[in-house]
């Protein structure tokens, strides 16, 4: 794709976002919705900027980010390890596969009350919920990536005298990397969503809690602010992951 087509694409992509903002503004300006229910976009974004400068709001973001990263990190470690193990050993596969088939379609939010009762209302229950939700896409794509590694690569590594366990790290893991990173990307988006929901249900801090407090006091402006913040966080984290991806996958064809 040449630079010109790319810039046309970007321009085209801005149009619907600008249109929805304009529609939002129009609904307010022409009085279809009262300002208390739908504040104009300008007010919301001003409020967002104003809030971003306050330490209180920064602390809420920090609390949310801490839970998000902790849960996501657990999910990545467990997902990659279990995924690789299941792909490498038929015995582990026979155990893991049916369990995953049962647990993957289970709505993890429904487990949240159990986590609350077992782990308390602090960080732990939320982190575990995030980890439980982000785990399966990462595990499945790791397994998928690792089990489709070309057999010839493994054979040539063996012929070169690489020990079996080193093949896992030197051949299988790098070859499965694109698939693993795709799983991580999905897991990251899920983490954003889940951490917010968990904070909405029971929490004393974090972005989700901000939304709930605003909803209880009917502060429509303050309801939009945390939502926009989580969307921005998601975009930024996605961008960072994309950068990590193009670094890790340098040398792969068509990243």
């Amino acid at each position, binding site marked *: 794709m040449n630079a010109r087509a790319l810039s046309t694409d970007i321009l085209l992509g801005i149009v619907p976002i600008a249109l929805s903002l304009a529609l939002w503004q129009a609904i307010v300006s022409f009085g279809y919705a009262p300002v208390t229910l739908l504040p104009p976009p300008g007010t919301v974004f001003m409020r967002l900027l104003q809030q971003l400068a306050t330490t209180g709001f920064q602390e809420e973001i920090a609390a949310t980010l801490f839970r998000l990263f902790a849960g996501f990190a657990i999910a990545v470690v467990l997902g990659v390890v279990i995924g690789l193990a299941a792909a490498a050993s038929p015995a582990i596969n026979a155990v893991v596969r049916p369990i995953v088939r049962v647990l993957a379609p289970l709505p993890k939010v429904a487990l949240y*009350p159990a986590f609350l009762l077992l782990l308390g209302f602090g960080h732990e229950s939320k982190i575990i919920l995030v980890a439980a939700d982000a785990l399966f896409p990462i595990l499945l794509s790791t397994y998928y990536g690792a089990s489709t590694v070309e057999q010839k690569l493994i054979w040539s590594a063996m012929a070169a005298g690489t020990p079996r366990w080193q093949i896992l790290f030197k051949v299988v893991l790098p070859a499965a990397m694109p698939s693993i990173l795709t799983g991580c990307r999905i897991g990251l988006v899920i983490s954003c969503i889940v951490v917010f929901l968990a904070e909405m249900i029971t929490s004393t801090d974090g972005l989700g809690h901000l939304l709930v407090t605003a909803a209880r006091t009917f502060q429509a402006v303050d309801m939009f602010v945390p939502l926009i913040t989580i969307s921005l966080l998601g975009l930024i984290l996605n961008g960072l992951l994309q950068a990590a991806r193009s670094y890790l996958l340098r040398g792969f064809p068509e990243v």
Partner: protein
Amino acid sequence: MNWVRGLLSRLAPLWACLGLLGLWQAAALILNTDSFPTALEAIRAIPAILGDKESLINILASLRRMAIGFSLAVAVSIPLGLMMGRSRGVAAFFNPLLMVIYPVPKAALMPIIMLWLGVGDIAKTLVIFLGVSLPVIYHSFEGAKAVEEKMLWSGAAMGMSAAKRLIRIVLPAALPEILTGCRTGIVLALITMVTSEMIARQSGAGNILFNSLDMGQYDTVYAMIIIIGAMGIGLDAAFERLRARLVKWSEPGFDIPLSFA
């Protein structure tokens, strides 16, 4: 010997269920706290919930909202995703917007939508619709993008119109991928359903779950977890069977949904 192995592998998910329940039972017996009943106690509480008329109506109402939200989302998302996959312009138009909406938790829109539409069925169905749409759009998009160019050329050479090509060539070719998206969508519909009812505590399965948590009826909490979990597993298995029948010709790439969860 072969049929024994076949039977074993077909029943493997069942064994996994039993194993997990056994693990739960053991953990509960060891921990022995009030807030963590054993698996048997939780299972024993299920008939009471399903036998109660009010909660049964609640659960059925949840399922109805889910079905409506899901069908609407599929009806809108598949054509949109297919068009995005076939036309660069359409894709460039919608992609950034979808990327912005993507990390927003759809159930978190519930408080705002409730302000506009009230706590009724419409708000909850709308949230389910939003939750299901994105994965279905995404998978239809990927499926349509991967359609072999030559088939479209031969279709065009035979004088098919663009709309007809979309329905007769792109749709069937992208069907396996679309169904993968729908399968993810079904699980997501269930998740959004539970969360939306938990935020708008008025009716539904999520309401029963979290109300009993607040009232300390731990048996009911865990029984509801089993019921909702069983719905997820059951719907997923039923959909998988349907998928296998519809796209028998396509090799099953993977028998577990790869994305989202």
